[in-house]
């Protein structure tokens, strides 16, 4: 990674970075819908369809609020994701990443879920409460293997800072990529990533026809627009976390975006062919397959192999 920014360059980056992440997220979301449509032998919507969706939602003239907590919780939802965004090193902007390591990121990534739970609980809709209960259950499922993979990487390289991990992988070339030096951890993390991004088969928190889209039941207009913005930025955040840990980071934006789209295509391919697991099946899977793989990887690191 290059040197740290100062002064006016830093201020410009701080202001522009969420917009850049949102734009990349819009294209990723549009790519996702187009890919899924082509998989189903349809034409599919426009490549920037999520942008139109967000504009439409923000232009709704009625806003049904369920109280002050509901409004604050929605801001917490988007704010938490943007905060997480700042601590992830990307080509050209590593100012905050030098101060916050992975533990900070793992903590901040839970704030949006908490915000959503508070906001949806305020709407007093049983479908929403069921959706939130499922979301928090699934959180227990995928978060454990994911944090374990990071602990393994931290032990292997002797540092918890994501910026240092990226620098180590970039200076050594492809042979030092996380997924090459420790394939067990990489595979476990990619399965946990499928859960973290709420793609099928781990899509049960949305479940449109069963619980009327779960947490999004009572959200309409600008509230739903905020949830969509959060979802799109989240696509960027989670793929970048994985790339920085296991796929060698990126030295310029072209490389980052190419890697993100390749990783996302893998996620979408699994999404396209699976149905939906029940919550208990999903948690059971997460603790039966990625968790032992990650544990084996960590044990291997402790014993000095791999």
């Amino acid at each position: 990674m290059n040197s740290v920014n100062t002064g006016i360059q830093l201020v410009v980056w701080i202001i522009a970075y969420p917009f850049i992440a949102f734009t990349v997220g819009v294209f990723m979301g549009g790519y996702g819908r187009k890919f899924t449509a082509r998989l189903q032998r349809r034409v599919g919507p426009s490549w920037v369809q999520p942008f139109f969706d967000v504009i439409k939602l923000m232009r709704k003239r009625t806003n049904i609020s369920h109280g002050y907590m509901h409004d604050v919780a929605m801001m917490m939802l988007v704010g938490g994701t943007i905060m997480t965004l700042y601590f992830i090193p990307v080509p050209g902007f590593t100012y905050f990443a030098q101060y916050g390591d992975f533990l900070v990121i793992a903590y901040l990534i839970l704030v949006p879920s908490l915000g959503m739970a508070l906001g949806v609980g305020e709407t007093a809709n049983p479908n929403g409460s069921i959706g939130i209960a499922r979301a928090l259950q699934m959180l227990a499922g995928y978060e454990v293997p994911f944090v374990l993979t990071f602990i393994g990487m931290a032990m292997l390289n002797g540092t918890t800072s994501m910026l240092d991990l990226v620098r180590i992988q970039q200076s050594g070339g492809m042979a030092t990529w996380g997924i090459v030096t420790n394939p067990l951890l990489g595979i476990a993390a990619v399965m946990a990533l499928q859960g973290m991004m709420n793609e099928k088969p781990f899509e049960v928190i949305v479940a449109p026809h069963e619980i009327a889209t779960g947490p999004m039941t009572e959200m309409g207009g600008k509230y739903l627009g905020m949830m969509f913005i959060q979802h799109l930025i989240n696509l960027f955040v989670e793929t970048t976390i994985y790339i920085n840990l296991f796929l060698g980071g990126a030295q310029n934006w072209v490389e980052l975006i190419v890697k993100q789209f390749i990783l996302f295509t893998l996620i979408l391919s699994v999404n396209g062919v699976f149905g939906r697991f029940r919550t208990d099946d999903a948690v059971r899977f997460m603790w039966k397959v990625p968790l032992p793989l990650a544990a084996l990887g960590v044990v291997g690191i402790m014993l000095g192999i791999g």
Partner: protein
Amino acid sequence: MEKRLTQRSAWDKVLTNLQKRSLWMLHYCTGCGAVELPPTMTARFDMERFGIMPMVTPRQADILLITGYLSVKTLKRVVLIYEQMQAPKYVVGFGSCTINGGMYWNSYATMKSLDQYLPVEMYLAGCMPRPEAIISGFTGLIERIDRGEANTWEDYYKNYEFYRKNQEHLFGSIETNVDVVGDRQYYKFTEVQQ
């Protein structure tokens, strides 16, 4: 169809152009015309390329599609749903039964003319309209939105007493928990004397 001439700012026109590309349909199939929706949504006729997606709750939907006949019992529920939707919203009458009774024109239990009870944006004639007709209707709706004429949702607030009187004539008074009169003042519409 009366044209509604409004002065729109350039910013409004640009945003409407973007907004019309994403319309979400409430996946609530009121009558037998709903059988034409699955072919329209799936691979052969693909409605999603226009940005039209089915959504499951009224809070998230823009288009309320009244597919086919509407019995008095269902009309009561549809009014509840319509009032929960968020403006701007478009009611599309689908099939001949919403226009003037259709096949059930002499039935004692279906309503005959949808625009007596809800403000209707567009009718699609047919019994029932094929997916090509549905897509042509939706593209017509998109063009209407683009021209800025698709404002019939305001009629519900302006002529609320008229619609309410007709609804109550059919099924008595219901409590919808939506303060339409209060919302009318919020939007600053003036009541039109019928």
